């Protein structure tokens, strides 16, 4: 029996399930009754799909993910930070890309992802992005997290928040939307039911056990009536503490085998929450540090180190998920790509088009999607950037409709954008 099956399907309480699963002392039953109501899971959500949005902050260099090694222009604009063709035996092994489709090669630092690509679980999308023309991290991120073509008028809440609010139900669990970090991303801004936590195993209130029930009850009371952000956060925090307290006695056990990094810990926790079937639907994870203006490196160095951590963490994540992988779809995105021509500091300045990845459940992988615009000067955009041929929202729309079962895409992305590419089954 699922430890979380507190309701018998008709809304009644299974006392046996509650006591056996939660293992709490009878004396605290009354104090927990309101929490109990909150952790009852709607049957259709219990085993629902999970979408993980992994945002690479700082503007990740798409050309260093899926390398267009067959294009002469690439080797011309990236004489120092570029990589070689897979067959170029004169290049060192860590500079040779891993062939994907005869045109693009995977950065060898991302070798951990190659099996997922070959098995059809990973798709790349190239030359993807927004209309942002400011080259400002903050404008470009804000536009993407609000789900707009570019920063400007429009809804102020996040695209994930709009999805979550439009499909909210009274029986949503407090763990429906989780941000693994201390700050809440703008894509969840305005979500009625979202929580940020840096680490699952540290999400505990640090008071003695004898005081805990009383303290939680008081904290709940103080936050129960306010409409301000502090009161809302207080309510979510109490709800989540109680839900996790119960869940910990079940299956929320973080696994091992991840790289020892912030991203590794975050994905480990997402996997644990997914496995625990606590009603998780959306998880947001950030990986920063991609603003590689200087010495970004090729083969080794700054960007290769970031790529290696990213690839190894994602590989560990899907290995850990095992059979649950089919429920969990990860989207990797960034606010913009980088200037095509490398600069004098062996880095790259802010650009335009970049790449995205879709991994896991429902993905029709082993393919790089999108129209490749080319790297010849006349094919570039703005001050010398990769053009955007795919609106990032066409990818996210597929995720919302195919994986989150929300067909009202206009609620989530109010502006028109391109037709789906068929990345998800």
């Amino acid at each position, binding site marked *: 029996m699922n430890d979380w099956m507190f309701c018998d399907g008709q809304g009644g309480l299974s006392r046996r399930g509650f006591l056996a699963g939660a293992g709490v002392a009878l004396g605290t039953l009354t104090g927990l009754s309101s929490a109990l109501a909150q952790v009852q899971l709607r049957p259709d959500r219990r085993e629902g799909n999970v979408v993980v949005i992994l945002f690479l*902050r*700082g503007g990740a260099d798409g050309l260093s993910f899926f390398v267009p090694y067959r294009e002469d222009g690439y080797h011309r604009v990236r004489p120092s930070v570029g990589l070689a063709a897979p067959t170029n035996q004169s290049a060192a092994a860590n500079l040779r890309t891993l062939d994907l489709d005869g045109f693009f090669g995977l950065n060898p630092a991302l070798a951990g992802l190659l099996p997922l690509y070959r098995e059809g679980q990973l798709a790349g999308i190239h030359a993807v992005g927004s209309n942002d023309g*400011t*080259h*400002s*991290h*903050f*404008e470009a991120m804000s536009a993407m997290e609000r789900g707009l073509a570019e920063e400007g008028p429009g809804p102020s809440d996040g695209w994930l928040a709009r999805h979550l609010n439009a499909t909210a139900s009274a029986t949503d669990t407090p763990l429906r939307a989780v*941000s693994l*970090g*201390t*700050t*809440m991303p*703008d894509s969840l*801004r*305005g979500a009625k039911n*979202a*929580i*940020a*936590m*840096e680490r699952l195993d*540290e*999400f505990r*209130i*640090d*008071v003695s056990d004898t*005081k805990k029930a*009383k*303290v939680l009850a*008081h*904290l709940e*009371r*103080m*936050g129960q009536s*306010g409409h*301000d*952000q*502090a*009161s*809302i*956060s*207080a309510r*979510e*925090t109490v709800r989540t*503490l109680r839900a996790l307290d119960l869940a910990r006695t079940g299956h929320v056990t973080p696994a091992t085998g991840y790289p020892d990094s912030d991203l590794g810990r975050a994905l480990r926790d997402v996997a644990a929450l997914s496995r625990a079937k606590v009603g998780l639907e959306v998880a947001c994870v950030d990986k*920063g*540090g991609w*603003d590689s*203006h*200087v*010495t970004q490196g090729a083969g080794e160095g700054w960007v290769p180190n970031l790529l290696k951590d990213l690839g190894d963490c994602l590989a560990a994540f899907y290995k850990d998920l095992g059979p649950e992988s089919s429920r969990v779809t990860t989207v990797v995105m960034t606010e913009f790509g980088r200037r095509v021509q490398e*600069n*004098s*500091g*062996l*880095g790259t*300045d*802010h650009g335009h088009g970049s790449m995205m990845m879709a991994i896991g459940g429902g993905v029709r992988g082993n393919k790089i999607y999108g129209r490749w615009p080319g790297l010849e000067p006349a094919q570039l955009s*703005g*001050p010398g950037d990769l053009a955007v041929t795919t609106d990032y929202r066409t990818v996210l729309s597929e995720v919302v409709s195919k994986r989150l079962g929300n067909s009202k895409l206009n609620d989530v992305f109010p502006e028109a954008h391109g037709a789906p590419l068929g990345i998800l089954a």
Partner: protein
Amino acid sequence: MTVSRRNLLAAGGAGLVAAGCAPVAARLTEPTKPLTAPRPTDSPNRRLADRLTFGPRPGDLAEMESLGQEVWIKRELAADRPDPLPLTLQLHRLDALWMDPHEMWDLPENMIVGQLQQAAILHAVHGPNGLQERLVDFWTNHFNIYGRKGLAAFRIGRIMQTAIRPNALGNFGTMLRSVAHAPAMLVYLDNQVNVQGVPNENYARELMELHTLGVHGGYTQRDVREVARCFTGWSMERRFLRKKGAFVFNEDRHDNGEKLVLGHRIPAGGGQRDADIVLDILAQHPATAQFVCGKLARAFVGEDAPKHVDRMAKSFIASGGDIRNVLGPLLLSDAIVDSPPVFKRPFDYLASAVRVLGGITDGSAAIQDHLAKMGQPLYQWPMPDGFPNEPEAWAGSTLGRWNFAFALTENRLTGTAIDWNGLEATNPKATASAISGQSASFDGTVPEAAALALCSPEFQWR
């Protein structure tokens, strides 16, 4: 400074000293006064203290009452009260503030970043000029530098001591120029590789987007490139046997051609002066006045800011960027008391919590760890925009705040102490009320009531 016996850490003192936090024994403040009668958070004096400073310490509100608001505000604007000796002594131990960068070259980065945070906490909790401290925090974020990038950390102490702190209530242009000459900023935004031929745009872009004009300030991508050209050659000394870490202008890396910046022609052959001209243009630009005043207004009157920006911007232009001139009329008006609450970032929260309980801290590792868990490890925000202000961004800090409140009130933080006996607070309800203006029925002890009041939604706002 006299220290009365009752103010020695009667309750937690022995344990704390045994735990190896001798610095705490040197009291940093005047003897604590009892928490006074309930003061709802809508009391005008409390609001002034919350907005202008990192919140009141016991006795501060009574002092404001006897001085009168106007005198108190003017005293904050003057910001000329000397640091108490114990604070001075604590700060003098922090090499990161005083050593020349080339002497620090071999020190561990963690130690430097730790000392910088320690200084910030010491100043915020114990500094006598509260408004000055709030503005130092404001400008530190306005000119944010990530202390974990390159060798930036080694120069942050100098930028704080020579650029930010002395000009926090002074002249914006002076501060801007001082920051632009600071190797910490130049290195953080990659200007050491901005050289003739292939300019690196990072510093040029953020200088206009975040430090001066604002993203809608009317500059173009072409301006970004031209400003980058003006700054070619501005760098940090790294050569052997030179004074490593000092500002240096590399003439041979400078693009000496003509430039056109925001419609101003900068003639060829200007050398280092090119970028000085750019800084003058930016410091006096009307878009800078609007952008900087908008941010300043939000720090003090939150969502009411748009009502005041135009008038502040006028005063910014008229006074040549004199921050005291810009802020004075706003702070002396009813705007503060009339405006809606402003959300406390974790650093605000932490400092105001220690202050409201009359606590003392040496700002060392234990309290820094809590700040990191709340999401605001100082000098460690990677992006150049500084820590966010929006309450939504801090939704994840709630549990960290609560855990800090319990650790603080249970005196579990090495290097930080609340003297419960000295506070002479005996009534849990009155204690809670003095902190948060709320006194929900609670049958616990005074420290428990204080912890819950610090956790309350009310105390997350100022």
